[in-house]
């Protein structure tokens, strides 16, 4: 048994998501460091069709990694650099490439928090569908590379259920890349009922389609980011744009940076404009809502009316034409819920529907919680949704749950200590962190 946690040394909590890496002290209400999970890099591959900039400033990592240079954090991918590629280690919610994980976590803890990880126990969160190999690799990185004195890995599905005060809950988590439904029963994930899909990606793809497709009242919208614009003049809504692009940068921009930057423009637009109709799709209802004015970095601006609701509708309903044209279409929210409940025992369904927990940044779509509630009560009249009104609780529910858990003095019994790691090796992770 180790004596960390408690009052003397506060533990650290790290939550690695598709959009951001959240790190902070256990017991805090918000993460101290929130950095993008996307990172910029210069490739070392001599065959790569990129220019090698700043090769003289290689950091320590570079000698053994595939990166000549990494650009991480708030000044990472968002600053345009000649030949800089952009990548993300997370695929479908899971860490797919561990090579940038150490630099990302190191940046969040050492540079942003100015804290030495070797002095603090660390709690890391994992998605419900994480693999045993992945969690063991995470333990290895923490113990062997960060030299942490103690480690624990906690499931975000259970953390979100607990943070809502529920041992038994139906956790609907909508993130940046994945939407998942996790039945939690008496504090444990009911594996057979776990379902997930890359639905948020489809929603973004639909938003892109709407923006770049011309309509009778406007032409297709260029998703050129701020970094590529030299100057612009203000124009009236729907008028042709007057801007000068940074022609010098265009040929030196990588495809990965460009697509990252375009996705960001789409995200910004979604956050400002997109919404869901709470009562299901209805042309008249969509048209009667007030349109929203939005200006793109090019200076182009227009009012979005019905289109903003078409985007959110993708979470709940897919047209038969879309389904027919794409057999691998990600399952929408009602389909995920139906599939999950089908796998659960009949008497459990009522209990789960009475304890729905809505979490994740993607669920903050305007109207999402109301729509979900309406969809559920149609089939389950007693359905009750717990959706934290506090945006921090909703967006960083997993981190916050881990923060409260790791701050409890009694939690020290559950940490895997460095000594235990050295004695038992990887197998201790699965035994201890259930």
């Amino acid at each position, binding site marked *: 048994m180790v004596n960390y946690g408690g009052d003397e040394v506060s533990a650290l909590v790290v939550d690695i998501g598709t959009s951001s890496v959240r790190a902070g002290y256990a017991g805090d209400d918000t993460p101290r460091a929130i950095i993008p999970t996307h990172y910029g890099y210069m490739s070392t591959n001599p065959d790569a069709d990129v220019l090698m900039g700043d090769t003289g400033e290689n950091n320590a990592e570079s000698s053994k990694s595939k990166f000549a240079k990494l650009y991480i954090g708030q000044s990472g991918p968002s600053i345009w650099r000649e030949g800089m590629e952009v990548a993300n280690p997370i695929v479908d919610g899971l860490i797919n490439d561990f090579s940038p994980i150490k630099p990302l976590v190191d940046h969040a803890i050492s540079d942003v928090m100015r804290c030495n990880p070797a002095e603090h126990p660390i709690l890391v969160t994992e998605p419900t569908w994480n693999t045993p190999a992945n969690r063991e690799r995470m333990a290895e990185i923490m113990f062997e590379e960060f030299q942490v004195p103690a480690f624990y890995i906690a499931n975000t599905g259970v953390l979100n259920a607990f*943070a809502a005060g*529920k041992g038994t809950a139906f956790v609907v988590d909508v993130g940046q890349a994945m939407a998942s439904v996790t039945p939690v029963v008496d504090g444990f994930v009911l594996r057979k009922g776990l379902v997930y899909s890359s639905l948020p990606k489809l929603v973004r793809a639909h938003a892109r389609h709407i923006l770049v497709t011309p309509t009778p009242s406007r032409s297709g919208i260029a998703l050129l980011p701020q970094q590529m614009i030299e100057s612009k003049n203000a124009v009236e809504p729907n008028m042709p744009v007057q801007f000068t692009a940074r022609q010098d940068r265009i040929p030196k921009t990588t495809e990965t940076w460009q697509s990252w930057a375009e996705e960001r423009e789409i995200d910004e637009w979604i956050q400002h404009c997109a919404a869901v109709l709470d009562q299901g799709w209805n042309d008249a209802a969509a048209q009667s809502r007030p349109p929203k004015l939005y200006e793109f970095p090019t200076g182009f601006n227009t009012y979005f009316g019905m289109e903003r609701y078409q985007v959110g509708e993708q979470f709940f309903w897919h047209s038969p034409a879309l389904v027919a044209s794409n057999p691998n279409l990600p399952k929408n929210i009602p389909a995920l819920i139906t599939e999950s409940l089908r796998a659960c025992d009949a008497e459990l369904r009522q209990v789960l529907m009475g304890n729905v927990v809505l979490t994740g940044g993607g669920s903050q779509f305007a109207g999402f919680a109301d729509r979900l509630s309406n969809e559920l009560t149609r089939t389950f009249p007693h359905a009750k949704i717990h959706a934290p009104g506090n945006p921090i609780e909703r967006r960083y529910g997993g981190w916050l749950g881990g923060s*409260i858990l790791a701050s409890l*003095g009694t939690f020290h019994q559950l940490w895997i200590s460095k000594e235990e790691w050295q004695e038992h090796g990887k197998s201790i992770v699965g035994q201890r962190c*259930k």
Partner: protein
Amino acid sequence: MATGVRVSSESIEAYQNIKLGKKQKYIVFCVNDSKTEIIVDKALSGKQIEKYNDFVDLLPQKEPRWAVYDFQFEADGGGQRNKLVLIKWVPDDAGIRPKMLYAGSNDELRKSLDGIAVEVQATDYDEVAYEIVLAKAKQGTR
């Protein structure tokens, strides 16, 4: 995943008094101030309770608790039955910290209370209404 909070021996004793001694109708449990143990909430547990509804009124509006109630009812085929009901009370208005603390300690308490027949997870008074608990008791499942 658990909080590491333990159940005090006094809590187990109080539970045995209900289960075997039939001396009390109910007990309310809470986590102690230093967040290390689950103890009997003395402020709520000593009162004389005649009706189930009076017991429900004891549950605080903004704080989580656990409660065990010796629930008596007429079985459908006739005859009186008694079942021990565990209520996991976490109102929506409780803060996120108490919610996490109580939900994360549920399992430890359940393991210590042998013989609970019905479990109710509730966030408001409607979910612990007499009819709801009666239906669950008759079902014999949670």
